[in-house]
């Protein structure tokens, strides 16, 4: 990302974003207090949300839903329509922001032309019922019993691999609600966030599970050049998402692609130990730790740019420097279209190379006349990047993100100068185990959590 590109991004705030987010806030506020306790003001806010959708296919259904809800009849179907309307507004915000970012970066992006995936058996009734109950009660009314009532549903979802998305999402939301119980006396509520999670969960759990169905895929072979790893984690799940440039064999355009490997875990397995849970993908982990190119053959690539990783169809090849990949290939690579349901500002995570900057106040990079905040909350505990290292950096591979009106850069890899020596660190450096002696020692002190819990599970679970 060049100074002129950053200037272009910051100088082109798309119109209507604030207005759209205000409409979303009206809905989010109704969720705080519960849909059974709507006063005239909150009812009017829902009416405004429905009115904004009037010209869309959801228009008539949204108007009817608000009429029924304000009259006191809050059905699952009505809530689902409003959740869809909220998602449509945030989808439009996402599109406008991403378009601004693509324009600033000069990044070409594919178009979404895929048909809706086929329907599948419905296992999501319990999920919808719990979300319905939450909406009636409102966040302020959530107590231990209401949170615990989701346990069985979450267990049954986790047992079905195809329903991992709603399972992981519901589990994350339930854990936050549990930690905040009783919410009635909570000082602050993450209003936007919980409404986001609730709405997405409701959309994913619509009858038929259509929203969870896999997108269409093509088969690809070629070289996969890693840019960096983004790590996502809550108490009971971790996902390593690799951003890379795909160089198809036999020529063809370079494309941006992602590889996502995820696994269930427990809260006490954290930090570098999470890599052990991903040990089923040794080729991928080795390529990350040793910074090697990946040769892949005949692997499914989903229309949204996600490779469905098959470790046995991959081989780690020669060393490949991610900074070189970023410098040489990133600018010309085709970015994938975003699947319709995933369109939300939180999903914007565009890889960029930023060089020759200075870091001010430890958390803001200055490039030319403009500045961009560094997202130091997104440095994963399983990797070597620290706020100090980022503050000492002058080049990074990062993801451009957006939250609550602000663009930020999340570093995935940095080049820094520490004690006059050049240092380079990547999020995936410890994929085969930490290389920093201090971290190795700390890990040895706390023992092998994974092994201890597996032993306990083996002894106690199968009785």
């Amino acid at each position, binding site marked *: 990302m060049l100074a002129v590109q950053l200037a272009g991004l910051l100088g082109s705030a798309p119109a209507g974003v604030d207005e759209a987010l205000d409409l979303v806030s009206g809905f989010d506020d109704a969720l705080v207090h519960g849909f059974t306790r709507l006063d005239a003001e909150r009812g009017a806010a829902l009416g405004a949300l429905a009115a904004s959708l009037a010209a869309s296919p959801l228009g008539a259904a949204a108007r009817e839903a608000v009429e029924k809800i304000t009259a006191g009849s809050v059905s699952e179907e009505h809530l689902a329509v409003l959740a869809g309307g909220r998602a449509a507004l945030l989808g439009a915000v996402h599109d406008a922001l991403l378009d601004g970012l693509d324009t600033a970066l000069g990044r070409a992006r594919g178009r979404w032309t895929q048909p809706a995936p086929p329907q599948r058996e419905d296992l999501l009734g319990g999920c919808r019922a719990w979300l319905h109950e939450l909406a009636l009660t409102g966040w302020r009314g959530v107590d231990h019993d209401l949170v615990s009532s989701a346990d069985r549903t979450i267990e049954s979802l986790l047992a079905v691999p195809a329903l991992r998305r709603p399972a992981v999402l519901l589990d994350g939301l339930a854990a936050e609600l549990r930690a905040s119980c009783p919410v009635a006396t909570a000082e602050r*509520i*993450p209003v936007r*966030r919980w409404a986001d999670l609730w709405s997405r969960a409701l959309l*994913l759990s619509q009858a038929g599970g259509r929203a969870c169905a896999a997108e269409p895929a093509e088969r690809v072979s070629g070289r996969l050049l890693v840019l960096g790893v983004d790590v996502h984690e809550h108490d009971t799940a971790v996902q390593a998402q690799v951003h890379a440039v795909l160089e198809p064999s036999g020529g063809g355009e370079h494309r941006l692609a992602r590889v996502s490997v995820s696994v269930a875990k427990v809260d006490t397995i954290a930090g570098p130990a999470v890599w052990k849970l991903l040990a089923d993908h040794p080729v991928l982990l080795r390529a990350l730790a040793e910074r090697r190119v990946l040769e892949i053959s005949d692997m499914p690539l989903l229309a949204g740019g996600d490779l469905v990783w098959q470790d046995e169809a991959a081989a780690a090849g020669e060393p490949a420097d991610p900074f070189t990949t970023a410098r040489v290939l990133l600018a010309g690579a085709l970015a994938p279209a975003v699947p319709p349901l995933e369109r939300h500002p939180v999903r914007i995570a565009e890889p960029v190379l930023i060089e020759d900057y200075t870091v001010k106040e430890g958390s803001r990079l200055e490039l030319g006349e403009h500045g961009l905040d560094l997202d130091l909350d*997104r440095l994963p505990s399983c990797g070597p990047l620290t706020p100090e290292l980022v503050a000492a950096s002058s080049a990074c591979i990062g993801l451009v993100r957006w939250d609550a009106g602000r663009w930020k850069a999340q570093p995935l890899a940095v080049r820094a100068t520490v004690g006059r020596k050049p240092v380079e660190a990547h999020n995936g450096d410890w994929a085969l185990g930490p290389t920093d002696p201090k971290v190795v020692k700390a890990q040895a002190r706390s*023992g092998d959590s994974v092994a201890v819990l597996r032993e306990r599970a083996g002894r106690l679970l199968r009785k």
Partner: protein
Amino acid sequence: MIKAVNGLSTAGGVGLDVDETGWELRSAVRVVPPARPRKLAKVPFVELADGRLQGVVSSGSDISRVYVSSISAGEHGYNCRTNNNRPCGGLRGAPCKHLRALVDEAVLQYGPQRVARYLRVEVEEGGDLVGALDGAPESADAAVVFSRFLRHLSYLEVPGTTMPVPELHWFPSTGVAR
């Protein structure tokens, strides 16, 4: 720097930017601070849930026996039983060693402030949390906590996936637990 959000923000909650203006309008904030690493051999399971500090403590003598220990928030009623629901022999009008171990490990995992706030107990920094409790033995069903522990363990049996989970963008890994 960090304000408590009713028992959910915590000591050591670096990166929990709840003080930042606009926090309510942000999508990607970490609401539950990550657990801190600790040795799991003695106390494999600790949680703050259902109005209790509760968990499972391995028996020192029998490898296939565990104790289920709990302390209620507010009242500080305590209980300790084996996984077969027999009362702990060490519980004679005062918290047994299993309950002490449970509290010690909870303090390591969550930080002393978060545990104290959850149990609603006043304790000075570095003070003895167990000593500050003023409850009496209460009868609680060990089976509920034990089944929560089994559920906890069962996460390690769930097969991983290589299909993307885009919803996890709402859950960034933060650098606190290292």
